């Protein structure tokens, strides 16, 4: 595209200024559904990172031969393929994690941040740039889910990454935080705080 963005910028935009969850409000379904613990958030984040990275590389490689009329079906096939790879991998290597993420792994297929990156970026850029862009997006998605998961896990169960550091004697778990309601509360507050901070800093975004 015209006016080359620097490679570093291509990476960092996904982390903050154009973060999929907190700025573009994409991928909210997994962000709300599986952020009930830090481990689940991390696993979902990395799984999504893998899919967005592989799909972006693949799409960028074949971008010149994809006919315009079937570009969406082609991308969906590619994305669905890599999602299934992740699903099988988790089942084989991390059965407990696969169980706790349940149907949300197959549902990565319909996470629009992945199709979004493939459609709006990988289709028009070189493989190298697509890798950098996908990494920024993937890591940006992962950190949000880990932070969200950690906040909900600490408040909801008094533990972090499964390690119990607040005992029931001194701390009453806020059960609501690990229920769906807690997801909306924490994500809403997080987006609010981050946008407030961005606006105060002069909001170059």
């Amino acid at each position, binding site marked *: 595209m015209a006016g080359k963005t620097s490679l570093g910028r291509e990476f960092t935009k996904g982390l903050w200024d154009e973060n999929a969850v907190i700025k573009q409000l994409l991928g909210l379904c997994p962000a709300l559904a599986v952020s009930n613990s830090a481990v689940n958030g991390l696993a979902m984040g990395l799984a999504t990172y893998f899919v967005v990275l592989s799909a972006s590389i693949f799409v960028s490689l*074949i971008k010149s031969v994809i*006919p315009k009329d079937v570009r969406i079906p*082609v991308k969906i096939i590619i994305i669905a393929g890599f999602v299934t*790879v992740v699903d099988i991998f988790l089942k*084989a290597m991390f059965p407990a994690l696969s169980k706790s993420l349940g149907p949300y792994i197959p549902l990565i297929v319909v996470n629009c941040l992945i199709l979004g990156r493939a459609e709006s970026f990988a289709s028009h850029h070189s493989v190298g740039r697509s890798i950098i862009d996908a990494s920024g997006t993937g890591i940006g998605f992962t950190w949000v889910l880990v932070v969200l998961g950690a906040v909900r896990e600490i408040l909801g169960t008094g533990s972090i990454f499964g390690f119990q550091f607040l005992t029931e004697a001194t701390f009453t778990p806020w059960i609501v935080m690990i229920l769906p309601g807690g997801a909306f509360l924490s994500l809403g507050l997080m987006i609010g705080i981050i946008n407030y901070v961005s606006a105060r800093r002069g909001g170059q975004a």
Partner: protein
Amino acid sequence: MKEKTAGMLIVLTVVATIIGGVLATVYKTAAPRIEANRLAEEKRAIFEVLPGAARYETIEAVIPGDKGDETVKIFRGFDDTGQFIGYAYTTAGPGFQAIIKMMVGLQPDYLKLHGMQVLEQLETPGLGNKILYDDFRDQFKGLELHPKIDYVKNKKPEKPNEIQSIAGATITSKAVADIITEDSRRIIAYLKAHEGEVAEAE
């Protein structure tokens, strides 16, 4: 126009074939591990609900259910002296939010349970999911199935077939009691009818 259609077909076919190939390879590599994981989990649950068991045998039982015949796996547990100590089988049914799946251990008298282990559940955290805790599960050790598993609220159970329900999660507690009662009834009927064959299999 024709060329365009041909191009679309070729690209879609090639992409789908490549992805299909990748998936087939990944699945073939992973399938044995997935099966091993499933068996390991099953084994852990069986030993959990049959205390003292050193080994077990599997019977494939065909049991008539609501939706036609079902093939059910029943496990017979033996202690280290070869003494038969009881049966284990899975039970499943609707809980408060989703299917609750459990492994149940039955004593050879067909009346008392050895114990219960939850395999799958999505009950409310903090309320219904207390069925995972030992406080609740321990009540099933020695619990009688006849005439059915019953529950009492907010007091100690008095009869040998009663459990105390989880405060605030009566539906879940009732679901667990009913699922185990119902499925056990069918399995016991099968075992009693096939007692000769089952023992011969040893």
